[in-house]
């Protein structure tokens, strides 16, 4: 889970950086979208690099989900009888890892259908015009709600996930504890803020 999670986390960092280009106007944003397709050219054929990234990501998502499923199964089996007296435990981020993960999985499906294939896109989806597509999505109330909720989930998931991955990989120790916690919090905050800034910008008219 740690390795696949970190792969996806790396992707998210690149993703949010790209997203923020939206603030530099349609040309730069669309050009960035184009570059993603010609990345690696002329050595690689058109969009090969992008597909490579997509394949690795898909593998990571599948691996992450399969591991999560197996882990959950095992954990449920390990405690067949629940405590009668239930108490709130652990932090919110820790407790919501499973539901957060499911929310994110559903979100990814919607997100691809919305902005990659355009299948469920509101308004006329245009290949090669990502700027306009983004503005269209965030001009609907449900687009904003789905997106913002999902990005909050990303933040929570990353907050526990990053720190937890460090422990799984054996990087954590008493001395690094504060550093790792701070890094996890920062990552979570930057990702969420970065992603959420786009719909907010559309709603407020900064991006239109």
């Amino acid at each position, binding site marked *: 889970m740690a390795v696949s999670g970190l792969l996806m986390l790396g992707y998210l960092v690149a993703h949010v950086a790209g997203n923020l280009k939206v603030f530099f106007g349609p040309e730069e944003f669309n050009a960035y979208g184009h570059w993603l397709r010609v990345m690696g050219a002329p050595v690689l054929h058109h969009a090969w690099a992008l597909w490579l990234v997509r394949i690795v990501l898909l593998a990571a998502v599948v691996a992450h989900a399969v591991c999560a499923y197996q*882990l959950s199964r*095992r*954990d449920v*089996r*390990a*405690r*067949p*009888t*629940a*405590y*009668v*007296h*239930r*108490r709130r*435990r*652990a932090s919110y981020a*820790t*407790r919501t*890892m499973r539901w957060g993960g499911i929310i994110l999985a559903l979100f990814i499906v919607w997100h691809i259908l919305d902005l990659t294939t355009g299948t469920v896109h509101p308004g006329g989806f245009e290949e090669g015009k990502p700027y306009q597509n983004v503005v269209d999505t965030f001009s609907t109330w449900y687009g904003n709600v789905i997106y913002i909720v999902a990005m909050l989930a990303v933040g929570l998931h990353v907050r*526990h996930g990053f*720190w*937890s991955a*460090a*422990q*799984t*990989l*054996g*990087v*954590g*120790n*008493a001395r690094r*504890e504060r550093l790792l916690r701070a890094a996890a919090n920062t990552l979570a905050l930057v990702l969420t803020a970065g992603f959420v800034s786009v719909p907010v910008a559309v709603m407020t008219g900064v991006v239109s």
Partner: protein
Amino acid sequence: MRLTLRVWRQRNADTPGAMSTYDVDGISADMSFLEMLDTLNEDLILRGEDPVAFDHDCREGICGACSLVINGDAHGPERTTTCQLHMRSFHDGDTIDVEPWRASAFPVVKDLVVDRSAFDRVIQAGGYITAPTGAAPEAHASPVPKADADSAFEHAECIGCGACVAACPNGSAMLFTSAKVNHLNVLPQGSPERETRVLDMVAQMDAEGFGGCTLTGECATACPKGIPLPSISAMNKEWLRARRKAARG
């Protein structure tokens, strides 16, 4: 003080259990939680009822026998063992829920008593240093840096009570296993068996049916001896190192 207890009663491993309610009166704040249960049991015996079975022995917080989940907390509200928990932590009129450790690797024997032999088997899988009696070199032959000795001690303090498993939402035994791995692996004496120890103990832990670790940190919060959460990371490091070494041959 007067209290209402709701206690898990289960005749044996094969019979389903349920919570039963008892009123206890005349409880002194100076009593330990177990002495309060003694009082209840004295009453039950005289009334011809079956007293509540619970594990206990040293009653000074070191043997690791006592094992009650009190109001959802392993060992109750204070960070100590159940036997060192006193009734002054409760108030007159409180209702207190008392349950056994719940984990499939710790099947209930009766009432609040569970079978923790899975822990023994994890130790048997590698939680030792092979040093047959008589074969030991002079104690000062290999000095141990104080920091390493202190770290070994910190982990060796584990009393094997199982509160980590009871508190973990996943029923995981990572903190217990990591305490022993870290105790022995940090010492020069434990170094020759470093890799097999961690691989075998983790494999046995998994085979016993403990849950997987999701780093919720509940174990370290419940641990009456303060085994720190980073122990788990340290064990993961040892495990990955051992796997790499095994892969290289």
